[in-house]
């Protein structure tokens, strides 16, 4: 899986650059995210701008990342999903639990308005 991890203020942005995110790629995503959390990242943003397809396992993985962040006193925001990906997230009810943003600055700012646990 092609991904990078950047900082934007206090937020950690996990940018996925793979268009088709499916089950075999997910352990890498989870491992890299876990490493970031172990190093102190708490406000996580999952940038899905470059992703055109996710399968159901990816949705499960996003919920795992959400729980990982929550368990460590942090939070997860999803950034800029493409229309079909957002449809998948909505179908699975992810949007009710994990906030979705279209702009990175808004995703970063929104952490300050959230409880830390």
């Amino acid at each position: 899986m092609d991904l990078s991890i950047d900082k934007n203020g206090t937020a950690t942005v996990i940018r996925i650059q793979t268009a088709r995110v499916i089950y075999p790629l997910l352990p890498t995503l989870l491992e890299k995210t876990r490493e970031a959390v172990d190093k102190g990242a708490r406000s996580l943003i999952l940038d899905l701008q470059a992703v055109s397809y996710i399968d159901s396992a990816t949705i499960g993985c996003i919920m795992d990342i959400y729980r990982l962040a929550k368990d460590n006193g942090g939070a997860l925001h999803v950034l800029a999903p493409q229309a079909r990906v957002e449809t998948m997230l909505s179908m699975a009810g992810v949007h009710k639990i994990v906030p979705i943003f279209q702009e990175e600055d808004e995703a970063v700012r929104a952490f300050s308005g959230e409880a830390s646990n």
Partner: protein
Amino acid sequence: MTTTHAVKLSTGFEIPLDGDLLAIIEGLYKEITLGTELNTSFETMRNEVLSVIDQMTDDERRNYLAESLFLNSVTYENEMLSAYVRRLGAAPAKPAGKVGPRPGPAKRKGATERSRRAPAKTKAKAKRRPRR
């Protein structure tokens, strides 16, 4: 999934079997539901779904069934978690720049009622950490 052959709907519309469950759901909706101007019956849709299944190989059926069950499991978990959070009165704050959430199938009335009826199970599920 490596198979790339396609299934054909009764309208002639072809859907490649590349593992994309949403493509089948969208195809059925556009071709059958919208194609009949919403005058389709549950029987028409059921027959169309069975026809799609009949055109799949065993491996494809297995993959799509797994995809469908997994998606429904995650949806159910999220619905239960969401109901639990609502009951706590601590629903996540609505983010400022968010594109409005699209009401999905998880918003069905039945799912909400089910959630209300099973508070203990919901709580137990929400507390389960971590999930692998």
